[in-house]
C-alpha cells in the first residue's frame, strides 16, 4: 500500500496545525460558525444532532493493521468505544469534542491518515473496488490512480469551493464493485486493443433526491491524461454548475440540463488546452506509485484445498461462511475474505474498538497486513490462504465477526439515520435491525440468495437506497416516519435506479412488506439461480404491487 514520504508528512502536519489554529480561533470567538463551517468540513468535522462528528478518510478503503489499531484507539480515547464504517469507505466517530479534534488529527497523522476533504464542497475521498489488487477478474489495480487523484485533489486551490461535493470512484474490473455510475466521475480502468491502460470516463451520476446514472463521455482516455481530463471536467463544473439551489448543484444536474453532448464538447475543449501540460503523468511516476501497491509475495499453499474440503464437511456453518464470504483470488490457493459488520440484529457498519484490534491482529497473522473497507460497510482481508481460513474463522466467531451473510438479505447498507444525523427524516438503524432479525436464519437467507437491501433515512440517499435491489427511503409524513419502497435498483456494471412501488409503510409494517416482497419473489423465480434482481427485471413491478396492495390489502389504504 501507499506509504507517506517526507513531502506527505510535511503536508499533513502543516494541515493539522492550520486546523488547530482555526479551531483555536473558533473557540476564541474570532471565527464565526458560518465561516468556520467550510473549514471544519474540509477537515471532516460535522455538527450532528447531538454532537460533533468526525469522518476520517480511508483512501480507497485501504488500511494496514497499524492504522486500524489507531482507529480503535481513537474510538476508545475520544469516542464511546466504537466507530461506524461508511458507504464511502470512511469511518465516522459520533461523539468527539471539537476541542479534541486537532489532537485526533495529529494522532492520525502519525499513522499516515487524515480527515481531509471527507466533507465540504470539494473533491472527496476517492473510492475504489474493495477487492482491488486481489480479485481474479481484475485487469489492473485501480488504486495507484486513486492515490494519484487523492494527492492531486488535496487542498486543490481552484477546486476547494465547488458548487457542491464531488465524488470520484475507480474500478479496474468489468464487474463494477465501486458503483462508478452513481458517482460524479466514474473511472473504469481497462486496456485497449494495443494492451495500453486507460479509462472509460463516466460523468454525472449520483443519488440524492435526483438519482441519475452517469453518462460515458470517453471510451478510452490514456492514463497519462488522467489529471488533465479530470481537471477539465471539474473546471467546467466549477464555472457552470448551479449555485442558486443546493439541491440542483451537483454535476449530475449540470450534465442533465446542459445535455451530455454539450458537456462533452465543453470538457473536450478545455482538455484540448490542458493535454500535454504540466498535468501530464509521466510513466515513471505512475510506475513509482503503482510499485507501492505491488501485491504481497504469496507463497503457494496447495495444502489448503484438501484441508478446506475437510473442514467444510465437518462444520456446516463454516462451509456456509466460506461459500458466502470468501471470493476467488488471483492466486488459486488464496481467497478474499469478507468480515461482515452486519451481525444479525446489529447496527450495519459499526465496529467496536476491540473488534478493530482483533481484525488488525488477524490481518497481520493471516492477511499480509492488508485490510480493506468496502462501500457495503464490511471489512475485507484481501489475501488469505485457503489453508488459514479455518483458524481465521474461529477467531472471528469469538468476536461476533463471522456472520455468513455477504451479499445476502441481512447484509444491509444503512445510513446513520435519525439516531444521529441532523438531516434525517426517519430512523434507518432500527429498521435494518428488525429486517435482519426477521430474516436472520442461515437457511432462510441461503434460500433467498443474493439480495441487496439499502436503507436511507432521508432523500439525500447516503444509504444508497436508489441502487438497492430493495431500497427503503425514510420520509416524514404528518410528523410520523414512513418508509417508501423501491425495487430493482442496482449499483454495478448494469446500474439501474429502483422504482417506487407504491405508497409507503409505517415503521411497524415495513418488515412485513419486505417479507411479502421476498415471498412473492420466491414464488415466481424460475429457479434458485435467478436472483431477486434478475427476476424483478424479468417480471416488472406488477406482481409485487399486487402482493403488497392487492384487494385483500386495499382496506388498509
Amino acid at each position, binding site marked *: 500500500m501507499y506509504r507517506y*514520504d*517526507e*513531502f506527505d508528512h*510535511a*503536508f499533513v502536519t*502543516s*494541515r493539522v496545525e*492550520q486546523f488547530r*489554529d*482555526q479551531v483555536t*480561533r473558533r473557540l476564541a470567538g*474570532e*471565527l464565526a460558525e458560518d*465561516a468556520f463551517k*467550510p*473549514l471544519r468540513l474540509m477537515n471532516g468535522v460535522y455538527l450532528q444532532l447531538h454532537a460533533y462528528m468526525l469522518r476520517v478518510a480511508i483512501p480507497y478503503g485501504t488500511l494496514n493493521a497499524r492504522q486500524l489499531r489507531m482507529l480503535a484507539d481513537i474510538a476508545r480515547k475520544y469516542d464511546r468505544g466504537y466507530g461506524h464504517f461508511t458507504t464511502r469507505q470512511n469511518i465516522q466517530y459520533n461523539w468527539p469534542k471539537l476541542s479534541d479534534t486537532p489532537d485526533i488529527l495529529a494522532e492520525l497523522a502519525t499513522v499516515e491518515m487524515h480527515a481531509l476533504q471527507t466533507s465540504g*464542497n470539494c473533491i472527496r475521498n476517492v473510492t475504489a473496488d474493495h477487492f482491488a489488487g486481489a480479485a481474479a477478474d481484475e485487469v489492473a489495480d485501480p488504486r495507484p490512480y486513486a492515490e*494519484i487523484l487523492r*494527492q*492531486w*485533489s*488535496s*487542498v*486543490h*486551490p*481552484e*477546486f*476547494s*469551493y*465547488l458548487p457542491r461535493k464531488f465524488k470520484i470512484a475507480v474500478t479496474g474490473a468489468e464487474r463494477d464493485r465501486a458503483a462508478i455510475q452513481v458517482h460524479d466521475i466514474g473511472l473504469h480502468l481497462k486496456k485497449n486493443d494495443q494492451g495500453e491502460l486507460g479509462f472509460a470516463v463516466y460523468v454525472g451520476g449520483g443519488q440524492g433526491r435526483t438519482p441519475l446514472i452517469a453518462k460515458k463521455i470517453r471510451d478510452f482516455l490514456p492514463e497519462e491524461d488522467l*489529471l488533465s481530463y479530470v481537471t477539465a471536467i471539474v*473546471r467546467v463544473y*466549477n*464555472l457552470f454548475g448551479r*449555485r442558486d439551489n443546493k439541491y440542483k448543484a451537483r454535476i449530475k444536474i449540470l450534465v442533465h440540463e446542459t445535455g451530455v453532448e454539450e458537456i462533452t464538447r465543453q470538457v473536450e475543449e478545455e482538455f484540448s*488546452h490542458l493535454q500535454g*501540460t*504540466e*498535468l*501530464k*503523468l*509521466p510513466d515513471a*511516476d505512475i510506475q*513509482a*506509485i503503482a510499485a507501492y501497491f505491488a501485491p504481497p509475495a504469496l507463497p503457494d499453499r496447495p495444502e489448503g484445498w484438501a484441508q478446506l474440503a475437510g473442514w467444510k464437511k465437518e462444520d456446516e456453518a463454516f462451509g456456509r461462511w466460506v461459500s458466502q464470504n470468501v471470493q476467488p483470488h488471483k492466486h488459486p490457493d488464496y481467497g478474499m475474505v469478507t468480515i461482515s459488520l452486519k451481525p444479525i440484529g446489529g447496527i450495519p457498519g459499526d465496529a467496536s474498538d476491540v473488534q478493530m484490534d482483533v481484525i488488525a491482529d488477524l490481518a497481520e497473522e493471516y492477511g499480509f497486513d492488508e485490510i480493506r473497507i468496502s462501500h457495503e460497510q464490511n471489512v475485507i482481508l484481501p489475501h488469505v490462504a485457503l489453508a488459514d481460513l479455518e483458524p481465521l474463522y474461529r477467531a472471528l466467531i469469538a468476536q461476533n465477526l463471522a456472520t455468513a451473510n455477504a451479499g445476502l438479505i441481512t447484509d444491509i447498507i444503512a445510513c446513520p439515520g435519525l439516531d444521529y444525523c441532523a438531516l434525517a427524516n426517519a430512523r434507518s438503524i432500527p429498521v435494518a435491525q428488525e429486517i435482519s432479525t426477521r430474516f436472520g436464519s442461515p437457511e432462510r437467507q441461503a434460500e433467498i440468495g443474493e439480495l441487496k437491501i439499502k436503507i436511507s433515512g432521508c432523500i439525500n440517499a447516503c444509504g444508497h437506497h436508489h441502487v438497492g435491489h430493495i431500497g427503503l427511503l425514510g420520509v416524514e409524513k404528518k410528523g410520523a416516519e414512513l418508509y417508501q419502497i423501491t425495487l430493482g435498483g442496482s449499483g454495478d456494471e448494469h446500474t439501474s435506479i429502483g422504482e417506487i412501488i407504491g405508497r409507503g409503510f409505517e415503521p411497524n409494517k415495513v418488515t412485513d412488506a419486505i417479507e411479502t416482497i421476498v415471498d412473492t419473489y420466491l414464488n415466481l423465480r424460475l429457479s434458485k439461480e435467478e436472483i431477486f434482481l434478475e427476476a424483478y427485471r424479468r417480471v416488472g413491478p406488477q406482481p409485487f404491487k399486487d402482493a403488497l396492495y392487492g384487494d385483500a390489502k386495499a382496506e388498509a389504504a
Partner: protein
Amino acid sequence: MTRVWRETGFVENDPWVIETEELKAGENDKVLLPLDQLIERAENSNDVGLGVLIKPADDIRKLEPYLYRLEIVAVEFPAFNDGRAFSHASLLRDRLAYKNELRAVGDVLIDQIPLMLRCGVDSFAVKNATALKRLEEGRLPGIAVHYQPTARQADKAGGYSWRRRSA
C-alpha cells in the same frame, strides 16, 4: 474599511473603485468597469491602463482581445463559498497569459487568501477584520507543499510531476 494588500504589504492610495448607486469614482479614482462596459470602451477608444471587474458568471475568455490594455483585472468572490473566481484567475493566468495585476474583491477571507495566491491572484481588497489583523501581523495560514501545479509558479518538489513547493 477596505484595504488593498499585496505580498509586499498594504497599498496606500489605491485608485481603483467599483462604482455603485451610492459610490461614484472621484477625480483621482479609476473605475473597475463591468465586462460589457470594458469591451465597449475598448472597442470605441484607444485607451490603455484600463481596469475590469469580472463577476462570477462572466466569461473570462472575452477579455482575450483586450489584455494588453488592462492594468488590472478584479475577480469577484461574492461569498466565501462561491469559488468560480478561482477558475477565472487560473484561466486568466494560465490560458490567457495575463501578466498585470489580478485582484480579489468581495468576501476575501484569511483562510482563502493562500488558495487565491496559488491561482495567480496578487492583490486583495480586504474588509474582513480578522483577515486585516492577520495580514498586518504577517500571519498567512498557507501550507508550503502542494500536490498540484497551478497558475502561480512554484518549484518542483517531492519527486512526482504534480508536486510543488512554495519558496
